[in-house]
């Protein structure tokens, strides 16, 4: 194990670790905070909350986003809700139960200490958001309402219609706006990080490209926080926003930060199916729909044929001819099994020839039973905007006919490796939210991404970064004329010039789509040794072809979206290979990582705890030396390891 891989999990009982740790780390006095600068990359839930909280504390914060406003970050698209262990419904929820469900949901591949802390601070998040004026759904008595999400048997999900992410982000964005107004935070929009700058091995600043002017700019600080989200767009078709990308994380990796579990990507079971070659992205239908929607395919092949040739409609198939396969296979959790389980079950039915649309890649999500039980009005109140969204995209009224859904890439559990302080292996470099690897193991539970982003940003990072910055109070502001900045800027400019100079025959999208197909076919929902080896080989070839044959119109010194895409695709072509490598090495199935060689007779994941109970931590060894793996063993002191069971 590399000596850099010290997870720094505090000793002691699980429930005392965080309290004890907080009492032992250093703090910075208000007068000294004013002398310290922090850079935050990204303005989603993690970045916006961190920048706001750090600004409130009195640090000088610079926050960067690639969009025209911090409010556009992709956290905004989260629909269903945010978990917390409030136990308001009196259904015997607790911090321990939320912790346990998360560890189990992640298929025993996350750290106990981190996850317990996440569950512990979850309740503060709800309090904070309510205080900010987030209009959560309420009961008639005026108290907060809850609903259920996959992988749990209690109702602990707080929500604001189907727009929970939007409302939480507007809360964090408002807190950020207040700090901008007060002058504690400076906001830089339409800027994309191009490189991390290290001085004497510590993160001291960044190089960014101004997306409006094409200017390459330098910014220095005492610490850098990466909150740039996940890398699901390596797959091309995903539910991620078009501009979401893993490039900032990849630059950190290439500057020495370890990358944890790159192959752990989540495939969300309920997305609107692919309609054709011209499609640019996939739209998610919230997991909350599985509270009232029932998933099925026909029992009879002849019904499938009739559906595909549009001779009958789903609503005409009688109850006894429907196979509610999740309820059949997983009686205890039914339609609310975790995402990875639901996705694989959908794939199993479609592979067996029961897919309900022309492509054979769709299953039904049906609200008939719920509408009969509760009435259309209640369903409209709960999911109105999601139903409208579905109808606008597909031209089908989901109140009358069931929705068609299919799994798609949604989230990456893997990310930059961090210790308990959320610090990476590079001193002064922190990673929070989806950008880090820390809390979800092999599979993330629904409504836990929002929880993690805000936990990291509001309640964890502001404490732990203080411990590092306390050692920097004598250190002057970073001088961006330092040779390290000079060198990094030069490298960025050269890379851009090199891309323009290729003048090949294919636009960027050609390569990104090809990569996306490779990733989905071989590094997607089902993986095997041969396929992964092929993917690695093909990605390498594609990368070579990209650097020979890509064409980028226009010039650098202008608003140039093709260049933006090219820079991201160049990184994706490297990151995709590492994802495949990691998947190849992990010869077990766990959570969203399904190796076909490793499954039970019933087609469930088969873990190999003896050999793979570790976090794979990859280190960049330079352009010609590839990637080196280190292993952080996972120790379970408080939870009894078991085979995940959602059947009884």
């Amino acid at each position: 194990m590399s000596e850099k891989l010290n997870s720094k999990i505090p000793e002691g009982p699980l429930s005392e670790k965080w309290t004890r740790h907080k009492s032992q780390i250093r703090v910075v006095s208000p007068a000294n905070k004013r002398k310290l600068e922090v850079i935050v990359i990204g303005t989603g839930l993690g970045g916006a909350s961190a920048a706001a909280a750090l600004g409130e504390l009195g640090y000088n914060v610079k926050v960067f986003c690639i969009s025209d406003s911090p409010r556009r970050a992709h956290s905004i698209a989260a629909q269903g809700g945010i978990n917390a262990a409030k136990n308001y419904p009196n259904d015997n929820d607790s911090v321990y139960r939320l912790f346990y469900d998360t560890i189990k949901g992640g298929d025993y591949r996350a750290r106990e200490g981190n996850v317990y802390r996440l569950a512990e601070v979850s309740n503060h998040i709800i309090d904070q958001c309510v205080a900010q004026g987030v209009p959560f759904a309420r009961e008639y008595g005026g108290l907060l309402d809850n609903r259920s999400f996959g992988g749990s048997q209690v109702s602990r999900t707080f929500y604001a219609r189907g727009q929970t992410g939007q409302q939480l982000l507007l809360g964090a964005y408002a807190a950020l706006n207040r700090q901008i107004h007060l002058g504690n935070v400076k906001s830089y929009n339409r800027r994309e990080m191009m490189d991390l700058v290290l001085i004497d091995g510590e993160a001291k600043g960044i190089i960014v490209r101004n997306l409006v002017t094409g200017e390459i700019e330098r910014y220095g600080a005492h610490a850098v926080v990466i909150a740039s989200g996940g890398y699901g767009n390596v797959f091309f078709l995903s539910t991620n926003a078009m501009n979401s990308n893993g490039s900032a994380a990849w630059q950190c990796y290439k500057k020495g930060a370890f990358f944890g579990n790159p192959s752990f990507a989540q495939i969300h079971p309920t997305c609107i199916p692919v309609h054709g070659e011209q499609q640019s992205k996939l739209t998610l239908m919230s997991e909350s729909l599985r509270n009232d929607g029932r998933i099925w395919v026909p029992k009879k092949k002849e019904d499938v044929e009739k559906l595909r040739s549009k001779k009958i409609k789903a609503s005409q198939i009688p109850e006894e001819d429907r196979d509610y396969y999740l309820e059949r296979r997983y009686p205890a959790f039914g339609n609310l099994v975790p995402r990875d389980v639901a996705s694989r079950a959908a794939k199993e039915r479609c592979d067996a020839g029961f897919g309900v649309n022309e492509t054979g890649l769709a299953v039904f999500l049906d609200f008939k039973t719920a509408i009969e039980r509760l009435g259309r009005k209640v369903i409209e109140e709960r999911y109105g905007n999601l139903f409208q969204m579905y109808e606008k995209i597909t031209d089908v009224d989901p109140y009358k006919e069931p929705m068609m859904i299919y799994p798609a890439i949604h989230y990456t559990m893997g990310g930059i490796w961090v210790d308990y302080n959320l610090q990476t292996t590079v001193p002064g470099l922190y990673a929070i939210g989806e950008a880090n690897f820390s809390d979800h193991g092999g599979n993330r539970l629904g409504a836990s991404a929002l929880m993690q982003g805000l936990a990291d940003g509001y309640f964890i990072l502001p404490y732990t970064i203080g411990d590092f910055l306390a050692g920097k109070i004598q250190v002057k502001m970073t001088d961006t004329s330092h040779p390290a900045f000079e060198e990094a800027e030069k490298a960025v400019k050269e890379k851009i010039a090199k891309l323009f100079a290729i003048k090949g025959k294919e636009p960027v999208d050609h390569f990104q789509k090809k990569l996306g197909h490779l990733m989905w076919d071989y590094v997607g929902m089902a993986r095997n040794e041969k396929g992964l080896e092929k993917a690695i080989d093909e990605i390498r070839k594609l990368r070579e072809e990209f650097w020979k044959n890509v064409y980028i119109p226009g010039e650098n010194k202008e608003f140039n979206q093709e260049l933006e895409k090219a820079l991201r695709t160049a990184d994706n072509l490297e990151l995709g290979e590492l994802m495949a490598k990691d998947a190849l090495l992990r010869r077990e199935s766990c959570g969203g990582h399904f190796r076909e060689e490793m499954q039970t007779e019933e087609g469930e994941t088969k873990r190999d705890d003896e050999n793979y109970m570790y976090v794979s931590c990859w280190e960049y060894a330079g352009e010609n030396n590839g990637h080196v793996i280190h292993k952080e063993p996972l120790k379970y002191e408080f939870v009894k390891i078991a085979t995940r069971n959602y059947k009884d």
Partner: protein
Amino acid sequence: MDFTLKVWRQKSAKDKGYFGTYQVKGISPDTSFLEMMDILNDQLVRENIDPVAVNKGCKSDGPVAFDHDCREGICGMCSLYINGRAHGPDDDITTCQLHMRKFKDGETITIEPWRSAGMPVIKDLVVDRNALDKILQAGGYVSVNTGGVPDANSIPVPREDAEESMDAAACVGCGACIATCKNGSAMLFVSARVSSLALLPQGKVEAARRVKAMVAKMDELGFGACTNTRACEMECPKNISVTHIARMNREFLKAKIKD
């Protein structure tokens, strides 16, 4: 389906703009409007690569710059004026939720950026909406720091109030209301935030201060006045009602009377 596209081209804020005319062919009715724009751009890039090989009728202007991100109607990034309507010919949607089935085969489609003094063009169809951030920075928040807040259930909020607050909070900040208003007024956008917070006990505490600061900033940035045409409400992709403007006016009056 085939279309003729008349697209606003403008190299930068300083350059003069013009309409470029392009043909796109073989578009599936299930394709979204922005996917159709992707196809156009692919064609325009290929035209740059090899002008002869591609469909004639395309002038080699390079790809069209347009803002987009989530492509599911929530980020508020997309901002096109299509055939004279913000977000195009369908109701209650953003441009990314518009599909080609809403057009006739062979139709000529005119695509422009938001046109409003408060939102200048950056390039082609991309505009600068920084002014919207500035208005919110002036007071669109509850002044609480992180931590030390009461339990979430300590203050009951009537369900109707929470629901109405949520109606207003659904604003995605796209700017369609401003682009549509003949006065270039930002009243619907500003009132959505003012009203959403004023309806909740947490936001009431500084409601007076908030509304004054935000209205002052809106005026300072040169947005026009409201003359109650309700065009904003008609084109709002999130169906935000002008009753929020009425509430903001009430809040503003209340605050001013106290002064």
